[in-house]
């Protein structure tokens, strides 16, 4: 009788646990279904549907048109040339940087500087690179001073490398940190065993470092692919909507058709891109999954060394400082420009030859960027901070970012936990679907999402931006990868103690994945703090726009004022980054203390 009651209790508990798990998964599943899968299906439908003479027909006519479109072919060709060069390159460079970081053991200040390019407003980034590469820019000034003719960098044979350099600068630091966090998870004993067994450097790198880093490589590859679309905003600012044929990427094609709301072309182009992405991403994912299943190990996200950092060499310190300067340069220039008087701004950056504005050639004045403006003035800060319109935009950004980050973290952690707990085949397939949805460029889904929100009469409200951001599958992906290695014994022990699924998540899993949550906070905050495209598409009311939209106009607008705004706008994100990095460090030191006290006991 007692055995029967126990069985009954066990079944009831099993059912209530299953219900709790599905309850946790519901927000993510519904959000992804309505905001990603449904728009994708709408995209698919529009790509096949055509109207001729008032009749709706389904066929491949849009695909035939688009494949015959030379502009599309040019964009795709350039995009793949760009992506095939830049994605492996950023992986290699950031991995090399991460390996160097592992040896150097830098402080949190350096790590912080590495993250900054990722969050600098797109207007400041574009302005900085324009100062270097434009016809009257710093590079041509240097050539002119050496007696060489100025070069049109944005239309010659070197033009293709400008986006590559821009991309490397923007993402290299962030990806290096992700790699660095991954490297710190590899137990030192593995290297010691390899050393004792006489393994060479190459063997250690391929058999230990790269093998154990495979999930991180996957994350970086996917984020790098997403990044290749994120960079389009800066490229538009630098080279316009119709740049030189070598610089015309697929992103230009998408954005130009998005502006015209040319749905059939946009949809068929997107479907073709998604097919190509699927055929590349899926095999990579399967190989990575097999590899990471073979090497079972995980730790926590760890950016801070447990080792003694004494004995830093001078060369190492100089190298670290030089690298930090490279990452910080655009920020320093933005700060410097924000402290210049409007007269000096015009004198230094005007293309026209004015009185006392120095070096010029052929009626063109070379820009004179400086880190030390004189006289210093805070008038542009005053103009910015005393204008209620800009302040409203600032608070719009704060509201958007706060709601997005909070919602995204909750939904992602719950969703990832269910992926971790339910080990079924259909969940693996669903997870692959999440990855695919994650790599679909935002521009592709913007139009169907717009139609969806229009149906709900939400197209002018913040929800049209917040909801897709909250349910973005990228969070589930990042947190699930971190949860995958969590020891099952801990879960089983908690279950034996009578803990429910929510209790297991809150008390057992969550305290151990704080690092992943902080990294996700960092990534999502950075991505949506500088939101431009979604805001322009969804928000018709100027008073509701976030400040990032105003700051993206730096090349056209009042440069000094926009610089001051950019500096103010950088402060919250710097504080969030600093808090996340310090949070990671504190968590690390706490876990170290706990381990230590357990050992003593």
């Amino acid at each position, binding site marked *: 009788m007692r055995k029967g009651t126990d069985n009954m209790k066990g079944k009831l508990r099993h059912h209530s646990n299953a219900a709790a798990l599905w309850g946790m998964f519901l927000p993510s599943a519904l959000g992804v279904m309505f905001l990603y899968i449904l728009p994708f299906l709408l995209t698919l439908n529009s790509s096949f549907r055509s109207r001729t003479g008032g009749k709706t027909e389904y066929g491949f006519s849009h695909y035939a048109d688009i494949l015959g479109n030379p502009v599309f072919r040019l964009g795709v060709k350039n995009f793949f040339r760009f992506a095939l060069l830049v994605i492996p390159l950023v992986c290699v460079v950031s991995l090399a940087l991460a390996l160097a970081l592992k040896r150097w053991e830098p402080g949190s200040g350096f790590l912080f500087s590495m993250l900054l390019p990722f969050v600098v407003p797109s207007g400041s980034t574009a302005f900085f690179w324009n100062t270097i590469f434009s016809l009257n820019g710093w590079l041509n000034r240097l050539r002119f001073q050496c007696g060489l003719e100025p070069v049109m960098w944005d239309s010659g044979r070197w033009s293709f490398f400008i986006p590559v350099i821009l991309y490397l600068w923007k993402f290299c630091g962030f990806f290096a940190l992700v790699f660095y966090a991954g490297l710190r998870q590899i137990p030192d004993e593995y290297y010691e065993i390899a050393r004792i067994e006489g393994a060479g450097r190459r063997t250690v790198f391929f058999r230990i470092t790269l093998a154990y880093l495979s999930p991180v490589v996957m994350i970086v590859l996917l984020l790098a692919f997403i990044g290749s679309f994120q960079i389009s905003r800066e490229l538009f600012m630098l080279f316009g909507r119709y740049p030189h044929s070598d610089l015309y990427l697929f992103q230009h094609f998408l954005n130009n058709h998005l502006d015209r709301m040319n749905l059939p072309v946009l949809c068929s182009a997107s479907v073709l891109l998604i097919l190509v992405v699927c055929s590349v991403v899926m095999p990579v994912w399967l190989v990575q999954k097999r590899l990471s299943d073979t090497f079972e190990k995980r730790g926590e996200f760890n950016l801070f060394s447990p080792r003694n950092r004494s004995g830093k060499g001078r060369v190492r310190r100089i190298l670290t400082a030089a690298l930090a300067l490279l990452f910080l340069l655009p920020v320093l220039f933005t700060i410097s420009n924000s402290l210049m008087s409007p007269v000096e701004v015009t004198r230094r950056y005007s293309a026209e030859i004015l009185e006392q504005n120095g070096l010029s050639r052929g009626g063109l004045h070379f820009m004179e960027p400086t880190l030390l403006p004189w006289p210093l003035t805070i008038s542009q800060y005053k103009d910015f901070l*005393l*204008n209620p319109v800009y302040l409203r935009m600032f608070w719009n950004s704060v509201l958007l970012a706060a709601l997005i980050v909070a919602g995204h973290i909750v939904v992602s952690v719950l969703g990832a936990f269910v992926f971790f707990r339910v080990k079924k085949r259909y969940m693996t397939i669903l997870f692959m679907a999440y990855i695919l949805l994650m790599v679909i460029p935002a521009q592709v889904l913007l139009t169907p999402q717009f139609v969806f929100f229009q149906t709900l009469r939400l197209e002018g409200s913040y929800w049209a931006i917040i909801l897709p951001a909250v349910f973005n599958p990228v969070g589930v992906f990042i947190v699930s990868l971190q949860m995958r290695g969590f020891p099952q014994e801990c879960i089983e022990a908690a279950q034996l103690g009578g803990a429910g699924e929510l209790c297991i998540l809150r008390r057992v899993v969550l305290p151990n994945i704080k690092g992943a949550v902080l990294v996700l906070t960092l990534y999502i905050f950075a991505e949506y703090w500088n939101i431009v495209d979604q805001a322009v598409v969804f928000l018709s009311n100027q008073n509701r726009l976030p400040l990032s939209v105003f700051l993206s106009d730096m090349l056209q607008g009042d440069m000094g004022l926009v610089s001051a705004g950019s500096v103010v706008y950088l402060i919250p994100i710097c504080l969030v980054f600093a*808090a996340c990095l310090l949070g990671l460090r504190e968590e690390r030191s706490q876990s170290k203390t706990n381990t230590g006290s357990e050992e003593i006991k």
Partner: protein
Amino acid sequence: MKPLRFVCCAGALFFAFMAGITAYAINSSYRQLTEVELSFAQRVENDRYAVPRSAVYTDQKGRSWLFLVLEQEGAWGKEYVCKKVYLPYAEPDQGQERVIVSERLLSQYPIAIAGEQVPEDGERVRFAEGDG
């Protein structure tokens, strides 16, 4: 002080500063607006309205105009702007305190009576104390 606590305090201070400066900026920009008095036209005939004489201006070419007050959505709530409207007909009333004008919009929008400073077309204005 722990670095994390320091960063949190710095964040709290920054946002408190931004909140303070926002309140100050809204208030000071409101105070800088041109002050006007609100008035309403009185219908005297079909298309004829009587408006206070002080609301009607005449330029050197003899053209008369007045300012209508339009409501619009501003950055921090509703704001009011003056719209310059030329009057095709404007004749002084018998008592000389009112002017009879013909303008259909007068039935929909209130009129602005400027003080010492005359607003420009499209300029944001605030109302004199007591006008709400």
